């Protein structure tokens, strides 16, 4: 009978990556016909847990039971066959194909014509229409997906899950790009599915939504399960407290920097995109570490890229040392001695197929030109100095950067920017995807730079990192600045409250 209580049981799931215990014996049970919310800070282990469930990662320990039977999936397709669907935060539809083709991709209805099989478009159309009617969705099955809003695309994903007769549907931040009306419609669909006995695992940061829709809430922190609670016993404050309540060890180096005069003033920065940052103003002092906190989607990266000249603004100004400056592209930002270590190392940081040498010098060739030609020997000696200074572990400066670990790649990129001797260094999630030991080294580098009078802006989604490193903390929520806090006087709860202010 135990099998009837829970449709899905995850028992003692552990998973570790080199240097990180991503999941530590996590057990979560989900009842059929219920909405089970999964909460936790960025990096608490929610996605890793879901990836273990779907067989994308194989857990080191623990087992997964569906209807009381042990399962392990080799692929998302396997999971689908067991009635498990996931609606991802980032949707990947085929934009230039019709809605119905997206919906039935990989399982088109066919009809036989002698020995040949053809796609049965008429049946596909009818099935799609019936499905949309059942779910009260108003979408033309033949229109191209490119013509649809994000919420409609998401509806298609939900319809796809329903069409698979999924009994467990996982939704990862399904409302992050929806308007209020669209959220209401989504909740209607969720309730309908729940009443039909479908279990929904709902991953979100939005407290209000969780309290509105969830039956049970599991809270995770640092790869561990804090607990599973009935939603009716919870309040926003209790959730925040359980999400962040942890002790801080000596995970950060001692800081000896003394913030000085204001170096950078950003006034009233607003993006042309109405969903992005608006009216953001802040100062940065010499030798200061300014942490920028917020949840995923708070538009922190977009703001910093705009300051660095990579994105347009419709209003706002930048003042350096009291003088107004315009940054129309990255070249201008660099000549003003601003550096940006981007969030996504792979797509905008490293040159995978080039050597460590070329990667370090990529933004600095100008300084090595001697009568039109590059002084490669001087470059080499600077690269050697960088490798020693930041202790980059590489067989040689000629090694391709793609053969280095994430931490060493990150140090290489930081070296690139340090070589141009920046006054302002913007670090976007500088320790993402880096193991614990390398993290400490990066913190040491940051603390040392601040001590030497460099001004640092550090975006981070990891609370302890923000609290452990920042002199001041700017908190953002949905594109707006919701507060600037003194690093020593604040705590995780205050930050979390500001980061969820408009949710």
């Amino acid at each position, binding site marked *: 009978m135990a099998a009837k209580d829970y449709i899905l049981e995850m028992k003692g799931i552990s998973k570790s990556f080199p240097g990180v215990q991503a999941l530590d014996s996590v057990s979560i049970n989900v009842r059929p016909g219920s909405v089970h919310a999964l909460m936790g800070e960025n990096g608490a282990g929610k996605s890793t847990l879901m990836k273990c469930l779907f067989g994308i990662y194989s857990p080191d320990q623990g087992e997964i039971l569906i209807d009381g039977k042990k399962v392990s999936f080799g692929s998302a397709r396997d999971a689908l066959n067991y009635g498990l669907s996931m609606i991802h935060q980032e949707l990947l539809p085929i934009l230039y194909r019709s809605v119905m083709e997206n919906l039935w991709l990989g399982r088109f209805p066919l009809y036989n014509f002698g020995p040949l099989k053809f796609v049965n478009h008429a049946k596909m159309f009818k099935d799609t229409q019936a499905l949309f009617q059942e779910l009260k969705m108003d979408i033309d099955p033949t229109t191209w997906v490119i013509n649809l809003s994000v919420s409609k695309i998401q509806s298609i994903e939900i319809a796809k899950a329903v069409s698979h007769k999924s009994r467990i549907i996982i939704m990862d931040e399904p409302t992050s790009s929806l308007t209020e009306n669209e959220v209401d419609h989504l909740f209607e669909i969720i309730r309908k599915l729940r009443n039909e006995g479908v279990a929904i695992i709902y991953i979100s940061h939005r407290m209000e939504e969780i309290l509105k829709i969830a039956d049970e809430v599991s809270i995770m922190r640092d790869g561990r399960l804090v607990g599973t609670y009935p939603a009716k016993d919870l309040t926003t404050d209790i959730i925040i407290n359980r999400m962040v309540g942890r002790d801080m060890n000596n995970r950060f180096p001692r800081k000896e920097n003394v913030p000085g005069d204001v170096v950078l003033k950003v006034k009233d920065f607003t993006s042309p995109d109405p969903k992005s940052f608006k009216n953001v103003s802040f100062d940065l002092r010499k030798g200061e570490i300014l942490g920028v906190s917020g949840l995923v989607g708070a538009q922190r990266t977009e703001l910093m890229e705009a300051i*660095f000249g*990579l994105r347009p603004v419709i209003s706002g100004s930048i003042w350096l040392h009291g003088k107004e400056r315009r940054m129309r*592209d*990255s*070249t201008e*930002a*660099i000549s003003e001695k601003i550096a*940006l270590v*981007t969030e996504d190392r792979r*797509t*905008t*940081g*490293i*040159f*995978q*197929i*080039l050597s460590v040498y*070329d990667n370090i*010098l*990529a*933004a600095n*060739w*100008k300084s090595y*030109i001697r009568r*039109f*030609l*590059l002084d*490669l020997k001087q470059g080499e000696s600077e690269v050697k100095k960088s490798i020693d200074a930041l202790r980059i572990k590489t067989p040689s400066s000629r090694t*391709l950067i*793609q*053969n280095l670990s994430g931490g060493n790649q990150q140090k290489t990129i930081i070296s*690139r920017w340090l070589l141009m001797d920046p006054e302002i260094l913007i670090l976007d999630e500088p320790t993402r995807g880096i193991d614990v030991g390398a993290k400490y080294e990066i913190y040491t580098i940051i603390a040392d730079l601040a001590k030497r009078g460099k001004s640092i802006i550090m975006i981070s989604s990891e609370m302890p990192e923000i609290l452990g490193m920042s002199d001041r903390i700017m908190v953002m929520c949905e594109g707006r600045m919701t507060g600037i806090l003194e690093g020593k006087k604040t705590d995780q709860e205050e930050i979390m409250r500001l980061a969820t202010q408009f949710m």
Partner: protein
Amino acid sequence: MANAKSLDSGITLIKSIREFATKRAILLVLIVLVLLTGVFQPNFLSWDNLINVLMITSVYVIIAFGEGPILLTKGVDLSAGRTVGLTACVAASMLQRADYESRIFTNFPFMPLFVPILIAIVVGLVVGIINGSIVAFLKVPPFITTLGTMVIAYGAVSLYVDRPPHGASPIGGLRDDFTNIANGAIPISGTVRFPYIVIIALVVFLLMWVLLTRTRLGKNIYAIGANPDAAIVSGVNVNRTLIIVYILAGALYGLAGALQAARQGSATNNLGFTWELDAIAACVIGGVSTTGGIGTVGGMLTGVLMLTFMNNALVFLNVSPYWQNIFKGIIIVSAVAVDIRKYLRKR
């Protein structure tokens, strides 16, 4: 002890030989090909024939040095061949002998040699500006952009040489001082001579080598090919770099066009047809990656030498021209299949 040591050094030797072999596989194949053909046809290795092959190579290699850097930026230039044809006709039309009967411009004044050659280079350069601007500012994929300009260049050259009522006819009767550039040589001793055109190609080789390895432009070209988004963040002016690369290529096609007209002693509107494909083939044989960021000037040169030597060797071995094409196709694919191993293994 001594034994173990020598064994160790033996292993390192084998290792480094193997490494060299994977890294320089194409060069080794080229050397083997040349030597093998020499064994069967000793004349193949004669100074005259080697110089002859180098002369044929010279024009092609200059085109490849235009195409190669474009490939390095993840681009491709299909207009290369037609631009060579266009510039060849432009140069030839201004360098016909005064006493030649069917001159294109009947009363064309005598010009110092360098002027028409310079004009040919400028014409190529203009094609490059057009290609580069469309690619950089309008963001039209290079394949499409240069497909368009390829067709346009052919139309333009056909109009240029079209002389009603005769229609498009070859431009012949070129001045001796002009043809001498491509066919003349510095005598070294006896029958041993060193052609001017090979010297020109060597100079271009050196300049390109310096450009790609010793200048910021070169480094930026590799950076754009390796990761355009990271290049933008690093302050590389991607649009300007792209335009310069296409302009440089166009100028090189112009030089190649003038040299080819001089070599042939004439030019037609059909000159250069499909030569861009040979240039692309040579580059990829020489290890230039069509996905950008990988490739060297030495590799481009090796690729062109590989193709011309193979053609020449097959002629010497009396293989039919039809078979030559089949061999060429096989070489292109297998060269890349071998070359790509050195990147696959590290994944």
